[in-house]
């Protein structure tokens, strides 16, 4: 499925390590299972033997650069898919990463499959291979099974917002275009429901939350060193035994804290072990900001000012804002 192969990336990494442009590489290595690939740092040519690249490398490594770019040493080589470049730009805007210390190589992306979608379909996966648009899965008990790749694509890839790299030092392959995707379709569908239906929908989704905080930990916009959710006095730091309120408060606050800075990379939904469509909360904020305050894409340009830290004298009144969609 992916147009670039592991070898192209490893050769590029070796070349840049050898000529001294960079002294470490952020990429992916094999995880516990065939479908779970984890971000990893490689410090030498030898370590690059463990470098992997494939259709499950969906992890956005730009957040790892926040900590890594603060460390001493030379530049860091990082391979970024188009949607990851938005996150890097946003982090540069917020002065969370030192862009000077990063050597970003843009790589094309054909959509990244998710392990969670695969696990929903089959058990005991031994190995996964993609040939063209077919995914071949070898399982322990059911033999070999095949699926169309589109079945394993997450919402963020089915409704990809952009194939264009907004920041890079070097590009492998050709740059794409910003796409006109249907990424707000699901949000619109929810908006058309009655409040009772919406409440039932979100109650069903959010009550599955186990408060593992994975959505916060993975989010490239969540880079506060002290997080409100870690405060033991907040009443929010862990899962409440009683249902209803606590998870709603957590998810509203989480989405609100990244409103205007969320680039819609969809990592929150990818890592959610309970398959909660968390990106629908973020997209609601993005959609609202687009309708109320004009089109805005976080991370598109370094230095852009998000709508929530800006204002005009003619802004919409809150009472008018909730009337929309009626």
């Amino acid at each position: 499925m992916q147009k670039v192969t592991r070898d192209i990336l490893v050769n590029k990494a070796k070349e840049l390590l050898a000529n001294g442009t960079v002294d470490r590489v952020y990429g992916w290595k094999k995880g516990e299972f065939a479908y779970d690939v984890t971000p990893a740092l490689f410090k030498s040519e030898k370590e690059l033997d463990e470098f992997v690249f494939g259709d499950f490398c969906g992890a956005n490594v730009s957040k790892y650069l926040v900590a890594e770019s603060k460390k001493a040493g030379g530049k860091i080589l990082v391979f970024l898919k188009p949607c990851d470049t938005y996150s890097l730009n946003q982090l540069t805007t917020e002065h969370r990463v030192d862009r000077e210390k990063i050597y970003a190589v843009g790589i094309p992306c054909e959509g990244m499959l998710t392990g969670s979608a695969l696990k929903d379909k089959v058990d005991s996966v031994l190995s996964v291979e993609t040939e063209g648009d077919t995914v071949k899965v070898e399982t322990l008990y059911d033999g070999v099974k095949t699926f169309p790749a589109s079945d394993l694509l997450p919402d963020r890839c089915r409704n990809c917002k952009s194939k264009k790299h907004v920041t890079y030092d070097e590009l492998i392959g050709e740059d794409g275009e910003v796409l006109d995707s249907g990424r707000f379709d699901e949000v619109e569908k929810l908006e058309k429901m009655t409040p009772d239906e919406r409440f039932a929908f979100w109650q069903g989704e959010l009550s599955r939350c186990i408060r593992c905080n994975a959505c916060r930990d993975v989010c490239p916009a969540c880079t506060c060193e002290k997080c409100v959710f870690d405060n033991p006095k907040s009443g929010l730091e862990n899962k409440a035994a009683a249902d209803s309120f606590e998870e709603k408060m957590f998810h509203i606050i989480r989405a609100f804290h990244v409103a205007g800075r969320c680039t819609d990379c969809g990592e929150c939904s990818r890592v959610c072990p309970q398959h909660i469509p968390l990106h629908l909360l973020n997209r609601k904020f993005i959609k609202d900001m687009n309708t109320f305050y004009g089109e805005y894409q976080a991370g598109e340009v370094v230095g852009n000012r998000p709508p929530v830290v800006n204002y005009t004298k003619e802004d919409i009144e809150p009472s008018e804002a909730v009337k929309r969609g009626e």
Partner: protein
Amino acid sequence: MSVTNEEYRPLIVAFCCNWCSYAGADLAGNNRLAYPADVKIIRVPCSCRVNPAFILRAFQRGADGVIICGCHPGDCHYTSGNYYTRRRMALLFSMLDYLGIEKERTRVEWVSAAEGAKFAATMNDFCKTVAALGENKRLEDLRCKK
């Protein structure tokens, strides 16, 4: 649980900006304008001091409605605070509506220090709206229930 014949009274939390709305509430008092005692006023230095978490926390602790009162746009004591409030609350209220929470439970009103009558009228109206909705069931926290 005991059964009582008491009339249901909503609990309203009003965040009032120190410079306009809080003085507006004072004026309402001085002018002997009545508004329900169900309104609990919390004074804040500026309406933009109100963190969205405050509103959610008020609901968690049993509020049935939350109203934020600030200076009229353009009149902020700190020049631009209420413009930020306006954006934040527009987004927050829209999100609460998206989650299926009754949108009548939240409101933003601009009340100046000279508008005692408007303050009383706003609170009367808001109390009536929230009382008609009844108890806040959708954002309640069972741990905080008495």
